[in-house]
């Protein structure tokens, strides 16, 4: 995924120098990657704007809303009460033209699309048509920012669970290749074809509807507890099912594919050599199996996260989780175009940030990853 030059035998020099080398290399890599990703985000967001405005639909909607507001204003203003219908219509037309000029709606779309790009990139996402944030603002940016922590909480929890549980279990299984548990995981891997919300429906059915152990949805009990500890516990209780659904949807497949990687790598000669030297199996796993496979694993994990980000929309709807996905769902219901477009832009940012962070992690753990520049080639 990273545009990197991978050359073997790059690890040289004394250990002390190696540490500072690592950081210099990672920083340089991060800088170049950040620039490249910024360019990618610009193109991606521009495409989003183009799609959102296909046929000038959104502009037509904005113009219509504007006209309606002006017409209402003219109708309610006592000063204009004596005007004839024709004069009033003319007044509305004139005012609408002035406001369209003020908002730049009279200029061709090709020009305005770049304005929109600039605004979207600086997260100046405009005003929602109908929705408001909990604090009462109709600024799309505020509405979205208000929802973001909930989504991040849910996803960070689930992803960390998946990552560490999968690595651990996959290593364990690669040692017990062919055992009952191993074959069970292989048999269960195809269940990952279903998305998280699908498992969410079943989890709600079992744990909320039938057993009544956990809540159907939401993020805290209503009314929210005033005590901080009680609040956190309530959130935790509400987190179990949605996070469980995310884990259920990708856990078995992740374990299966990583276990396969580990198996391939544990048949390498240097692993046999380490075994022959009599190293402890935990040391072999850490230094000889996990270390060389980690970059591959991080890449596959990145792709999982990327597909999960957008899959969250339905999950949040199913669990009534007050995050970005739920926001998009409600925006669909009210056809609130600015919110939908804004959320799409934010999702593009989230994906880019995910890619960036994982690239950096990749560079930290893999000494061969370097920025492709002439001077570095040896």
């Amino acid at each position, binding site marked *: 995924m990273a545009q990197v030059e991978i050359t073997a035998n790059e690890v040289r020099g004394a250990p002390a120098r190696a540490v500072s080398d690592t950081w210099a290399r990672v920083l340089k890599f991060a800088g170049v990657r950040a620039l490249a990703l910024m360019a990618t985000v610009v193109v991606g967001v521009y495409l989003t704007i183009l799609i959102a405005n296909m046929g000038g639909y959104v502009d037509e909607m904005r113009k219509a809303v504007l006209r309606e507001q002006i017409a209402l204003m003219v109708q309610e203003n006592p000063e204009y009460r004596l005007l004839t219908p024709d004069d009033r219509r003319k007044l509305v037309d004139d005012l609408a033209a002035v406001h369209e000029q003020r908002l730049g709606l009279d200029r061709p779309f090709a020009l305005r699309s770049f304005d929109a790009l600039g605004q979207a990139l600086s997260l100046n996402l405009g005003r929602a048509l109908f929705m408001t944030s909990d604090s009462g603002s109709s600024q799309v940016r505020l509405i979205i920012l208000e929802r973001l922590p909930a989504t991040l909480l849910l996803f960070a929890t689930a992803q960390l669970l998946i990552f560490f549980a999968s690595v651990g279990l996959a290593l364990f299984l690669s040692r017990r290749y062919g055992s009952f548990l191993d074959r069970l995981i292989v048999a269960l891997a*195809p269940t990952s074809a*279903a998305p998280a919300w699908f498992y969410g429906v079943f989890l709600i059915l079992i744990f909320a*509807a039938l057993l009544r152990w956990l809540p159907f949805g939401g993020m805290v009990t209503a009314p929210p507890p005033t005590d901080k500890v009680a609040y956190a516990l309530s959130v935790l209780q509400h987190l179990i099912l949605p996070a469980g659904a995310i884990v259920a949807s990708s856990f078995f497949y992740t374990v299966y594919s990583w276990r396969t990687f580990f198996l391939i790598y544990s048949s390498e000669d240097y692993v046999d050599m380490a075994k022959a030297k009599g190293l402890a199996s935990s040391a072999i796993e850490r230094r000889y199996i996990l270390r060389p496979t980690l970059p591959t694993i991080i890449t596959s994990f990145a792709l999982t996260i*990327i597909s999960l980000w957008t899959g969250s929309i339905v999950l949040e709807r199913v669990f009534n989780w007050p995050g970005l996905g739920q926001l998009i769902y409600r925006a669909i219901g009210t056809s609130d175009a600015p919110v939908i477009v804004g959320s799409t832009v934010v999702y593009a940012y989230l994906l880019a940030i995910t890619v960036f962070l994982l690239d950096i992690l990749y560079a930290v753990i893999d000494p061969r990853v370097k920025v492709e520049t002439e001077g570095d080639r040896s």
Partner: protein
Amino acid sequence: MSQFRRRLSEISRYPSAVAGLFLIFGLIVLAAYALISIPYDQAVSLWRGGEAVWAENPRNAAPAWLNLLPGVHLPTTMVIDSRALAESKEIVDAGGIKELRIALPVEYTFDGFPKEVNLFFQGSFAGAEPYVSVAWLTPDGREIPVADRSVKAQDAIRLGQDSRLTRRLGNLSAEIGLFAQPGSGQQPVPLKGTYQMVIDALLFEPTDELDAKLVVYGQLHGLAGTDHRRRDITVALLWGAPVALAFGFLAAVGSTVTTMVIAAVGVWFGRWVDALIQRITEVNLILPVLPILIMIGTLYSRSIWVILNVVILLGIFSGSIKTYRAIFLQVKESPYIEAARTYGASSLRIIFRYMLPRVAPILVPQFVVLIPSYVFLEATLAVLGLGDPVLPTWGKVLEDASSNGALYQGHYYWVLSPAFLLMVTGLGFSMLGFALDRIFNPRLREL
């Protein structure tokens, strides 16, 4: 051909692949049955139909096969129509004012109470509307007056909504009160036996006609139950199969084939073509697919074919281009390509005749695994309320169920049956795909 047979015999060694093939075959049979038994137009009109189409179905009834479970004997829907029962109609007095008596027998042996009781009238009158008095005769000989009123040419008496009748039945709604054992108190038990709905009608012209139809709505209905709009869910479950298969298959074909061709073109021409393709892939990676589909569904069109095209377009430059590229880079250096180049084969010929066929085996498992992900994508969109406006699909059933609180109210069948079919599709294709992956990727074979 012999190679194909060898592959087939290899597949038969994997139980999961055989099971997967079996499930896929079942789905194809289901899809074919749906297409033959309910033509497209009929499916659409049935699914969009309102009360007029589904008047004889109960609301939110569970599937009828629940009665096969031991100890369950819940009511199913009974329709007693005077047009079908010639002996139920009796002309008492034909002179001057015509007196007509319609007696509709109801054989009730179930353990629970029905969901609703409605009486429909259909008639043709030259002048004034006929006057009917309706009475309910219970097996133990009681006679309960139900209604006294005039009826229109198309009329319905919804017994459960008549508050005076409810009061007369001791504050029990008609569907319970009419069937309850007298004196069974707060926990009414149904009285089994033959009931009769007796309608005495006065028709004011000799040519006037009147027919009555009594519908006793069951708690169970049909193969898959009914939804909140009385629709038989079976229609959507059946028609969901061809829609899901067609969508999944076309989307998977469209995206994998184009992805592979583009990867091959990039590798073959190299330089800026390759670089451009790589950059587009990176941009595409951060394009949020589902929000874009949502945007298109909300702002432009919800038609499944528009969505399909967008899905394919967004799927062309997917992450798998990188995988294919790595393989093509190796293929490009192989001697037979060198040979083709020396004899002067054109670029197109080399790409389509020599490079693509070489990697096609890798495509097969990927392709099979991709199908269910697209099937679930369609369901995902439907659950968000962006399903195709006319076609009944599994996802739309799930959407109806979740927006009507099926799980809160205990209508589990409503969620479980479409979910079961989705799961079968997902499992069938991915079980086969995983096995194919092991067959076609020798490195995985011994693992």
